[in-house]
């Protein structure tokens, strides 16, 4: 069990920003929502999957939408709780806990806000091990977990309920409503048992955020390179994960559009040392990075932008012309590289015309 406190909050959200791989919305907003709750004396407890029994009933709660909207129209927590209560009403059962659908970005923080509002604990596991832009891009689907019922709620508590034929269709339908709800909406879906979490979710990713946040802070204090510190830490983790610095450069161009409920765009960097250029494409999260027409890293491996000096992770909405940043790539665990997993969130799933090649083979 981990307890979120005003002391470890900052490291948690820093790690969540890292796992957000540029997207997932800036967890800074989530940090402020949590700070508000913790200051009111609310308790937020996080349980590891080994600490729950198989018939525990858990709901995924999240915000859907474009990060560019999120930084302006700050969401409200009661709407998310409203979504969870609606799912309970439909299935006729009460939840024992909530969990994040993704470990990165603001959605890592939303279940903790719901936890503060409801008193339910949070399960330390998620369906992405990072952030992805779409609802069906979860490892739960490798184990055929039902996404239904899907509930979407806006700030006015206007509520839409879907029973979708599959998770991709659920994403498609909910996204349309999300746009009409003003570019973001609060959601509850994928009700799961303890057994399903143990079988299909990526475990202890909240703890991973605490650890990454800690490593970056520690490296900064010790005058070491934060990017290297995270790469070293990931190498030592179990399973061991490969990482490298792809590029150090200055932002020379940034194209960012809010399209169909996503933030899509292209980031161009020019090297500080020579004439090299790096291009990174994103759809909420970074999709792939290429230099001289050679792809250097691609989904689902993690691509992260860090401030070149402090190592602070920067989300795509925080990127600005002229910034000096470091692009780091980290491999995902093997369960996210199976054929079924790559069908869900490999390059082809994002409409890219190349096959997945592991980061360490590029």
């Amino acid at each position, binding site marked *: 069990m981990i307890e979120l406190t005003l002391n470890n909050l900052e490291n948690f959200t820093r790690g969540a920003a890292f796992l957000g791989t540029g997207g997932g919305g800036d967890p800074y907003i989530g940090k402020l929502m949590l700070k508000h709750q913790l200051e009111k004396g609310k308790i937020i407890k996080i349980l590891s999957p080994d600490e729950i029994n198989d018939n525990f009933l858990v709901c995924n709660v999240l915000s859907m939408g474009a990060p560019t909207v999120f*930084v*302006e129209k700050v969401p409200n927590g*009661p709407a998310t709780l409203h979504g969870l209560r609606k799912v309970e009403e439909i299935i006729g059962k009460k939840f024992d806990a909530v969990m994040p659908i993704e470990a990165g970005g603001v959605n890592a923080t939303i279940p903790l806000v719901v936890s503060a509002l409801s008193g339910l604990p949070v399960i330390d596991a998620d369906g992405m091990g990072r952030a992805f832009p779409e609802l069906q891009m979860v490892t739960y689907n490798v184990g055929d977990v039902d996404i239904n019922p899907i509930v979407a709620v806006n*700030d006015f508590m206007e509520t839409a309920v879907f029973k979708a034929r599959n998770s991709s269709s659920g994403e498609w339908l909910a996204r349309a409503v999300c746009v009409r709800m003003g570019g973001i909406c609060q959601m509850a879906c994928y009700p799961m048992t303890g057994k399903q979490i143990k079988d299909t979710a990526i475990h202890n990713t909240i703890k991973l955020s605490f650890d990454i946040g800690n490593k970056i802070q520690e490296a900064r204090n010790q*005058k070491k390179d934060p990017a290297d510190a995270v790469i070293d830490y990931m190498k030592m983790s179990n399973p061991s994960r490969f990482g490298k610095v792809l590029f150090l450069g200055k932002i020379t161009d940034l194209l960012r559009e809010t399209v169909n409920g996503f933030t899509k765009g292209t980031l161009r960097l020019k090297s500080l040392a020579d004439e090299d250029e790096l291009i990174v494409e994103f759809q909420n999260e970074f999709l792939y990075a290429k230099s001289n027409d050679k792809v250097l890293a691609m989904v689902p491996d993690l691509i992260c932008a860090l401030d070149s000096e402090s190592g602070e992770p920067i989300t795509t909405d*925080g990127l600005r012309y002229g910034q*000096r940043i470091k692009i780091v790539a980290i491999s995902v665990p093997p369960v996210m590289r199976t054929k079924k997993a790559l069908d869900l969130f490999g390059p082809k799933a994002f409409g890219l015309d190349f096959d997945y090649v592991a980061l360490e083979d590029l």
Partner: protein
Amino acid sequence: MRIGVDVGGTNTDAALMDGRTVVDAVKSVTTEDPGSGIIEAVSKILDKTKILPNQLEAIMIGTTQFTNAFVENKRLEKVAVVRLGHPATISVPPCIDFSSNLRKIIGENFWILPGGYEFDGRFLGDWSEELVKKAAYEIASKGIKYIAVSCVFSPINEKQEIETAKILKKYVPEAIITMSHRIGRVGFIERENATIMNSSLGFLANKVITSFDGALKKLKIKCPFYISQNDGTLMAANIVKNYPVLTFASGPTNSMRGAAFLSGHKNAIVVDIGGTTTDFGVIKEGFPRESSIPVDIGGVRTNFRMPDLVSIGLGGGSLIEFNNNEVKVGPESVGYKLTSESLIFGGNKLTASDIAISQGLANFGDKEKISHLDEKIIIKTMQVIKQMIEEGIDRVKLNKDPVPVILVGGGNILVENNLEGAEEVIIPDYSDVANAIGASLAQAGGEIDKIYSYSDIGREKSLELAKLDAIKRAKEAGAKTETISIIELEEIPLSYLPSGAVRLHVKAVGDLF
């Protein structure tokens, strides 16, 4: 001829410049009413150089008064925050990330009202004149004068903020209102934070600028006077009355630009030791290295463009405390009261300057007054100060390699010349007035904020036109062509307008001299 003035927490300095040549410079002390300090510094330099007021073309003033006030939580006002966005945003109340002390000073006077816009320009909730009026009455009955108005998506449409401010002004006629769209860009929390900061400085801004104005009138100086902005460009003084927050990082920007100019070094670490604080920054190719992550000022997150700095509470006026062989230097400082409260000037407070004088590192005040100090404490204090500076240098360094270190600011007397991590320690001529010189080297900027149609002329063409326009305006404002560069470029798609409309904000700046 022009005069650059720096009004710091402790000293007010003035430098007379002719093009890129320093004619002369003087130091004097900052006074409680900052205008008197300016009168003293400017008349000193005019006397010294025999220049007449009517020979001056411009006065450029850089001031850290507003930053200091905010960081020290002093001279700030209670603020009423009127936020348009309900029921969105309610989970993050205003000022949530401010320190508890700041929250106490600013007060929890918040009105989160329906209103604001969706990303596509539609209305978010129903803005209500009645509710704004009700808020106005409540603000008036609480006697709050300074009001910050924020609104979800005001960077794409400022109308609701303007309408709300009008009504507030009607029912609270004495109100001084800051609207968020005038202060910041997309990023609601950071923009609202900066708006609240600006409001909290409202009283001080009026007082300081009026005092500057009065001082120049007394000196019979009729040329235009400007205040440095955080990006190194200038702002007319009467605008600063309403937007003090826009001066926030101008102090460090001025001192770093001044240091680069005086030393001739293009790549170095600049250590600016003032009366209350010491700033550590990096110049790269002659320009201050900018921070690429949101910058905290007094613990509050903002999205201003700022030099990447490390600041510590060490300066010439820092108070020295000791017990059981442990010496503590700062962060409390006597500030501008150095010349009355420190021992060498007959006061009863032991400051870092007293220690430096006793070590013979500088010569001012009355050395007799510190002859009783224990040698051990003096040595220990010097060690602590040196250590604090070396740590600061280490924190802004990119790697462990030694780099040139330029020492500027009046407090450079606190340092003997060897520093760990420095390839060499450079104290250029006029280093104690680098800030004033930096202010006089101000840049001219050109800004455009205009809607372009990507489907008519394409993105590339639109960007090119916008940049050329900004550069043209910078030139018109006096920037030298070969020094102009684009420092800000923001694209906001306006999906509510037809034909791929995008709002482009571009700023170009270049050297005036």
